[in-house]
């Protein structure tokens, strides 16, 4: 089998100077906090699933820097985000509270994402401009193109950022979305979180090209590959893509190569450990500060989880609610 992107990569060697990035300690610590938060919430969700308390959703372990790096480059409240089901870290970085994540995972009536109606991890938030996460792989890429099209007609500065796995790039929707976005130079950023495996199918048996980014050539847009465990490299790449989109230069396909980390065992590809190591080397963080941060986050997360556990399930009498803006019914005798 061919080499995959994963074989080619040398995993995170974070270095702001190499990227000519001007980042402050404050920024780095904020992003590190977001990465830790995502990791710790992900752990709780894994526990809930393993314990049989919840089902659905997928781990973002290994994808944290890829997602947070892209969110760091966008303008919250202006830009639109069309995620897929692994984008837990992206949602937390945007500002979705852990309480919302747990209420959603446990399908509570007060689940602000769907009122208990949607499979967990199909994110939605009007306030954060998070739209249309689908359980169907790749369909949201077309919605991203449509939102960008609408924004341009209205003369708004919004960029549509959409995430998906490499498996989605074999879907027709992906082809159609990139074709339309490329054709009209729409302000869309297509981010492929390539973890090398679609459910169980390795990349080499999914596509005849070596890099997902190679597919961009067919749609008249740049395709960029970036090490998704290197937070700063992702930020630099995403900033370029946003700048191009806002300048009317059209869409970008970013292939963020990430590991799908399965266990809690230390892994040299772990983006959280990579950023931690960088912070320690810069003396922006001490071991004691790191432990304190983890403990504080843990307390906050456990409180949110407890609140969700205690929240009631949806009222069964509401099962048919929210189908239409109006009642959707006509005649009183209708079944």
């Amino acid at each position, binding site marked *: 089998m061919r080499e995959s992107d994963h074989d080619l990569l040398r995993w995170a060697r974070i270095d702001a100077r190499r990227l000519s990035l001007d980042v402050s300690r404050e920024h780095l610590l904020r992003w590190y906090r977001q990465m830790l938060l995502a990791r710790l919430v992900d752990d709780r969700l894994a526990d809930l699933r393993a314990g049989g308390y919840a089902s659905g959703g997928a781990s973002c372990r290994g994808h944290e820097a890829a997602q947070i790096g892209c969110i760091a480059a966008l303008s919250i409240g202006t830009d639109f985000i069309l995620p897929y089901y692994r984008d837990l870290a992206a949602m937390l970085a945007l500002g979705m509270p852990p309480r919302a994540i747990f209420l959603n995972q446990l399908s509570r009536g007060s689940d602000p994402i769907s*009122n208990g109606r949607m499979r967990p991890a199909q994110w939605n938030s009007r306030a954060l401009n998070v739209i249309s996460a689908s359980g169907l792989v790749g369909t949201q890429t077309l919605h991203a193109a*449509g*939102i960008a099209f*609408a924004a341009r007609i209205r003369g708004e500065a919004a960029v549509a950022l959409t995430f998906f796995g490499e498996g989605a790039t074999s879907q027709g929707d992906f082809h159609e*979305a990139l074709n339309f976005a490329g054709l009209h130079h729409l302000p869309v950023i297509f981010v492929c979180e390539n973890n090398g495996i679609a459910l169980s199918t390795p990349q080499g048996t999914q596509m005849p090209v070596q890099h997902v980014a190679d597919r961009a050539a067919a749609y008249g847009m740049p395709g960029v590959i970036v090490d998704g465990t290197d937070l700063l490299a992702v930020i630099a790449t995403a900033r370029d893509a946003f700048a191009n989109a806002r300048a009317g230069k059209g869409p970008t396909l970013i292939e963020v190569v990430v590991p799908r980390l399965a266990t809690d065992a230390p892994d040299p590809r772990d983006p959280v450990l990579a950023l931690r190591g960088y912070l320690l080397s810069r003396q922006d963080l001490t071991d004691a500060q790191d432990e304190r941060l983890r403990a504080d986050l843990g307390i906050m997360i456990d409180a949110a989880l407890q609140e969700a556990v205690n929240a009631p399930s949806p009222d069964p009498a509401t099962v048919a609610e929210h189908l239409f*803006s109006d009642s959707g019914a*006509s005649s009183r005798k209708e079944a």
Partner: protein
Amino acid sequence: MRTITYREALREAMREEMARDERVIVIGEDIDGYGGTYAVTKGLADEFGRERVRDTPLAEEIIVGTAIGAAMGGMRPVAEIMTINFALLASDQIVNAAAKARYMFGGQVSVPLVVRMPAGGGAQRGAQHSQTLESWFAHVPGMKVVMPATPYDAKGMLKAAIRDEDMVLLIEHELLYGIKGEVPDEGVEYTVPLNRGEIRREGRDVSLITFSRSVHLCLQAAEELAKEGIEAEVVDMRCIRPIDLDLALDSIAKTNRAIVVEEGWKYYGTGQGIAALLYEYGFDNLDAPIGHVTGVDAPAPYAKNLEKAAFPVRNDIIDAVRRIMPQRVAR
């Protein structure tokens, strides 16, 4: 009032709504270059610009998928699918994304989208271009499906659909584009509700329950039946979902007999759905089994004489009525 075609009525509806609300955009294949395959959108691009009247690549998922995104992003798109037959390519976006979005997200997401498309056969377009598939979509909760039969309804329902907060599938009929009918003058404001049917002809003896082009066949059949002394009531169900069941139930409470008439296939279709509801809620008012006139159970053939045999004609309706009338009816 003046008399215009069904096609012109649809175009006027879009023109008026585009002028009234800058969020209204039109998107589809060849809607600019050709003015639409059935010339419904002719002139709109010149009037409103090519950003608001957008020709797409030949890909139905682009049309519906980007229109859904635009709708969720604050626009009011009218998507034209060349024919309902091609909507199968976009059915994932229609069924799985647009129809479910509000429910899945607990009432927080609206998809104010209109998908316009013709259905129906009779113009020698063959098996893959002559289908009537509204029941495939109407089956899904969250779907609004309407099928206007007259120019008045075409304009009024399209305007109502554009203003609706939910997705509406407005299914036209390719043999209706050229028919003429009375429509209020341009700029005279009216809409037609998306949940009410209409009695097209009153009668006491039998209810012909129908929609779309078959309304006109039923009206012709009713005129013939009247010569035999049988007064048929023609009930235009025009809203397939939500359905105006009361209208049909009130009609059979009066006539005690019903024939459901459609050009689609018999099994598991719209007509069977309507008949089942009439049995469920109107059984006590029926003096005879409900008759059902449909297209023949085969893909639409191409040869002219075969195609003629495949779709219902006026006399099929007359025969069906005679079969369920009491013999004493020779008045």
